[in-house]
């Protein structure tokens, strides 16, 4: 039974990260019907800038929680700036063209960012310091759940609730939902659609950066390529939950994480990715729009 709970918590941890990333995919898709393939790279850049900022802060003599908080703030700002710029450079000029053009430009952006980081930083793996604090109250639960797993789950849950509140109760959230429903109509009622799109990218990138910091401190190593696998899995999670739906992305991430964890635990880790994608295929056969996706009315 203990084994079951260990796998469950492990799956939840992994699922939370997938969910954080999947939110970025799903929000952008909801508003632009665009799959932002460069999103995984923002996650990777988040992890890299966290490493750089944390090293600088540690050299200045700071320790513990202050490093984590300052590094997180800096990284979130930096990644958000990247997300904003990527949208302006790679997607905005193509907004009126066919739907395939921004898709290709997204793939191009992803390859560009990967190679840019490889050349500007290194192609080697780098050790990532364990930024997550090791406080005493966490020791008492360490037999049940690792401290970093606990922090990942709690942080993700907090961030995701904040996002839900933001979308539901703020003016900005309202504008975002309106733009997702009908861009032209939103524009006619005075919503600044360009600003909404920029903000969507900024929020999505910030979430990805948080995911990057959490998972990098958990796994302990990063390189320029980590965004690719994480991006593919998160995209799968977004589709699984119903792309375009915010609660769907969270659910999709958790389901995917749990499926992989239980698959590895009870059957074999050789088939880890097979479980993830078999589940995706099954769900798409019975529910083509994903678990929480609304059947889409194609806009002409």
């Amino acid at each position, binding site marked *: 039974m203990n084994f079951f709970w260990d796998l469950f918590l*492990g799956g939840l941890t992994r699922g939370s*990260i*997938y969910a954080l990333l999947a939110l970025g995919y799903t929000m952008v898709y909801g508003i632009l019907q665009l799959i932002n393939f460069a999103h995984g790279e923002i996650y990777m850049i988040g992890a890299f800038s966290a490493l750089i900022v944390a090293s600088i802060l540690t050299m200045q003599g700071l320790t513990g929680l202050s490093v984590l908080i300052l590094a997180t703030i800096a990284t979130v700002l930096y990644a958000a700036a990247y997300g904003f710029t990527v949208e302006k450079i790679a997607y905005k000029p193509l907004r009126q063209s066919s739907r395939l053009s921004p898709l290709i430009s997204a793939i191009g952006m992803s390859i560009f960012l990967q190679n840019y980081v490889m050349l500007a930083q290194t192609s080697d793996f780098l050790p990532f310091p364990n930024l997550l604090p090791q406080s005493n109250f966490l020791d008492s639960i360490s037999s049940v759940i690792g401290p*970093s797993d606990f922090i990942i789950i709690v942080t993700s849950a907090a961030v995701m609730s904040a996002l839900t509140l933001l979308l539901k109760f703020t003016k900005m959230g309202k504008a975002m939902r309106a733009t997702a429903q009908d861009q032209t109509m939103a524009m006619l009622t005075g919503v600044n659609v360009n600003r909404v799109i920029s903000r969507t990218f900024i929020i999505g990138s910030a979430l990805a950066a948080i995911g990057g910091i959490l*998972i990098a401190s958990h*796994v*302990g*190593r990063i*390189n320029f390529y980590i965004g690719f696998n994480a991006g593919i899995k998160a995209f799968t999670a977004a589709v699984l939950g119903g792309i375009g739906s915010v609660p769907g992305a969270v659910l999709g991430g958790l389901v995917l994480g749990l499926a992989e964890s239980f698959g590895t635990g009870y059957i074999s880790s050789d088939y*880890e990715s097979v479980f993830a994608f078999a589940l995706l295929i099954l769900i798409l056969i019975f529910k083509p729009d994903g678990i929480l996706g609304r059947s889409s009315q194609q806009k002409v």
Partner: protein
Amino acid sequence: MKNDLLFRWILIPFFLLTFGTSSTTFSAETIKIGIAGAHTGDLASYGLPTVKAAELIANSVNTKGGILGRKIQLIIEDEACKPELATNVATKLVSQKVDAVIGHICSGATKAALRTYKDAEIIVISPSATSPELSLSGQYPNFHRTIAPDDTQARLVADFALKTLKLKKIAVIHDKGDYGKGFAEYAKIFIEKSKDAKVVLYEGITPGAVDYSAIVQKIKYSGADAIVYGGYHPEAASVVQLMRKRNMKTIFISDDGVKDQTFIKVAAVAAEGVYASGPKDTTKNPLAIAAINEHKKAYGTEPGSFYLNAYSAMLAIVNAIDKAKTTEYKAVHKALRNHSIDTPLGKIKFNDRGDAIGVGFSMYQVKNGIYVELK
């Protein structure tokens, strides 16, 4: 202004012309050696030392007038250890009419490229590809290597786990790659055959996955005393770190892919106590010392993985061409088998299967941040 014009319209074409003519005359009589392997990407740290070794030897041979009166020209191609790129690189090298190839670095990529070289009758010497089937199958008579194959390595690791550490329950994990899985399969067979210990878990993990918690949990609940891991250092570093974070004391034993300083750099304190097999310590061999000093002098750094293997491979091919007095395939093939040569790895020549006689493995353990050879 006038000078500027002169420079632009007269000097540039002049330079272009001189370079153009010199390179064509140069290439007509050189001995071309292809250097193929991972020079970018995750595994670049395995491939780049080979390039440096080849450059050092080519330079020293060329300053002495070359072999058979011909200079050595290196053609360096990167395939990032990816089989699909390796076949492209092989085709490219064949079309450039190389006389021999030093490489490739990873077993998977080497296997993919070998057929192309075999059809073109080109000698291949890999400094690092250890998959047993490359030489065992007998399919590739053109293949040679200056490293011992994995079954030797797996045998050593299994014996070490059973006889030295006297372990009873072992989990065998691999990364599903040609190299890691090959090593793990042999290790599993050797452990099971001995009947002294049980393989409690045998599984593959996905390289580059976001997290390895689930497999670590599984290892924990399997009750294994030790893990024998077949694969490369990036995943090994993650698994070891996750285990130590969960306070698991399970012994970690791995292969040459993990016996890399990058592993210790990434896994940091978690790397302490990890065992890995690797080529025999050659630090007392004067040729090895000289080769390493040469590297330090030329590049200012310590050489990386497989540097000495590559150095020896390059020496072996130069020697064989010299002894055969031709670059013709059959003669060089024979010379590699008949003439032994002193290299940093010891005195080597090649057996019928293409494996170097005289190279082997030792066990190492991480102590205070470096790998120390165990006697």
